[in-house]
């Protein structure tokens, strides 16, 4: 798959396209999990080799939480993987959980949380990490429509608050319209440069029309 484009800081970009076209591959390359030729740069400099050292927070389709750790600990990993937190850091973690609507659930493990609550824990972690680039690889695909809308609203809020640039894989063009000003279409082995979402969807090119049906 080929991709050659740049994004403006603070942009919110949907990534749409048929299954198997390479949406997740694109996200993986940016996050540092997929080997690739060429360069991925951030503010003009090539990204570090180590995914953890990149200015990126990524939410995968599943397995975003450690099952043996509590909600609090899963969020705290975003600050310090050693979990040795100062008092001030503990307060920040607790605060992040309150912000995503999980007050009082600090000590629950993922198995004791609903799907929506699990997503909220992962989002609280991205909030606290506050990396400038937020990648969402369909983390809410398993949630119902109302819950998914709630999560997307929360994501938009977090992106605004942290000033993050956001890339979001989606199968639902309504989502793209709702919160993403721009859209990258991935089809036929190419990730096309971002276009304004409304214009793209109102006047789709042939590949997109085929996908939309």
């Amino acid at each position: 798959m080929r991709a050659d484009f740049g994004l403006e800081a603070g942009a919110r970009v949907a990534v749409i396209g048929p299954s198997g076209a390479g949406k997740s591959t694109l996200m993986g390359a940016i996050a540092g999990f997929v080997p690739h030729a060429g360069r991925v740069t951030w503010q003009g400099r090539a990204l570090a080799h180590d995914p953890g050292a990149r200015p990126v927070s990524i939410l995968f389709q599943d397995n975003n939480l450690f099952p043996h750790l509590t909600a609090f600990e899963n969020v705290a990993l975003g600050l310090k993987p050693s979990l040795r937190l100062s008092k001030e850091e503990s307060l920040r973690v607790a605060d992040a959980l309150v912000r995503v609507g999980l007050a009082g659930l600090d000590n629950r493990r993922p198995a004791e949380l609903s799907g929506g609550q699990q997503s909220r824990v992962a989002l609280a972690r991205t909030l606290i990490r506050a990396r400038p680039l937020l990648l969402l690889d369909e983390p809410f695909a398993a949630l119902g429509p109302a819950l998914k809308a709630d999560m997307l609203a929360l994501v938009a809020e977090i992106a605004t608050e942290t000033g993050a640039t956001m890339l979001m894989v989606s199968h639902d063009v309504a989502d793209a319209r709702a919160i993403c000003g721009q859209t990258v279409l991935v089809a036929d082995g190419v990730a096309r440069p971002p276009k304004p979402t409304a214009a793209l969807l109102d006047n789709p090119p042939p590949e997109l029309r085929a996908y939309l049906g």
Partner: protein
Amino acid sequence: MTRARAITLALAGVVALWLIALNFGALGAVAWHAEGLTGLRAADWAAVRFTLVQALLSALFSVALAIPVARALARRRFRGRGVLITLMGAPFILPTLVAVLGLLAVFGRAGLVNDALAVIGLGPVNIYGLHGVVLAHVFYNLPLATRIILQGWAAIPAERVRLAVSLGFSPADRLRHLELPMLREVAPGAFLLVFLICLSSFAVALALGGGPRATTVELAIYQAFRFDFDMGRAAALALVQFALCLGAGVFALRVALPSGLGGGLDRPLPRMEYRPRAAWGDATLIAATAAFLLVPLALIVLRGAPHLVGLPVAVWQATLRSLWVALGATALTTGFALVLAHAILALPRLGAGALEWLGLAALAASPLVIGTGLFLMARPWADPRDLALAVTMLVNAGLALPFALRLILPALRDVAQTQGRLAASLGVHGLARLHQITLPRLRRPLGFAAGLTAALSMGDLGVILLFAEAERATLPMQLYRLMQAYRQDEAAGAALLLLLVSLALFWVFERWGRRDATA
């Protein structure tokens, strides 16, 4: 109820009765014939203590050493890694006496280590006693524990590793959040399995232990039976051993015992798998482990090869007898395992659970207790010495059954789930189904189970010592006699022969299982 189902259940009933007789009836016979239990002496309690201490130490060392070795193997890729991991499965089918002879060649009075120590003027190390027994058990079980723990490492979900990498975990963070949780799940099972295996240790204690300070209960049963003709004591000791095994077995029911036998350890790890820079520590650890396992075996080959051709006729005759025993045990075990597995799938939950438990019960059974019981049960009808080989075959078959069942049951369950409905809709039942659908899909686990059973039975030294005379000796027994008589050269040759035949048996069956396996 269909006819096939009725036949399956009837056969399973026969096998179940036989297993009950083997695992529990034998003990009853021992107790019955004892005509009153003789009180245990101080020496017997010492044997109980020694049994527990050596099993604890063996399990502790095996697992404690296996953890860093498995970690090193999990995170390094090098030439020969696959071969080394495969070789780590070999001690499991290695005849005990061969392993003991190999260890003697390294750590014994005239072994490599003492030669080296003498050069720098240090006194000889003595391999006999507690540390010798533990050393031999670690030699046996370190590879098994390593394979089990390595599976744990390989089973850490790739998604979780990915998450850890994306969050920038340091090695200490990985240890805490990925590796320790895995070890907490895997290590207790490995520990318990090694403990169970060492609890009924006989041949190792016979060869390297002995005396008042290093006798296991199994060895004490043998001595009471064979040398003192003290049935009361043998029976009392048998009850003690049964209680020990039962205790450990009840424990084992709570912890899921791993098998360490399966394959699938060569899964290439994704790129994001970390490779710490300090490669020297891992390399040293892997090299030391390989040397610990391979040098004794290499010495067996080197020392035995010149004497292989000139072996006495008695050794070749014993080899033939052992082959018959091994092949008979293999046929019985695979047959039993197939019948039990089919019945377990055909029965409702409670019955299936009971049957599976019965099939696995031999894991905690004592071969010497079973052998003694069968001897006593057979005595009214026949001269037990005539039955020595048949009894050995039956006991071997029973002891290998848990392993065979563990290999075959999951595979059969899989076949039933994936092809059961299709077969039923096409009306393929009974023998046709077994022949056309089930067996071809079970070839691999069947071949593996058969190879395992044949090799285990070929190398077993246990029950046969209770009642066989020289003219009915198996190859391991013949080897033991040569060692007792200090005929070192012939013993070396016989050990190599035993090693070769055991490995060849395993190889032939395992090969058969792989040949045009379509699964």
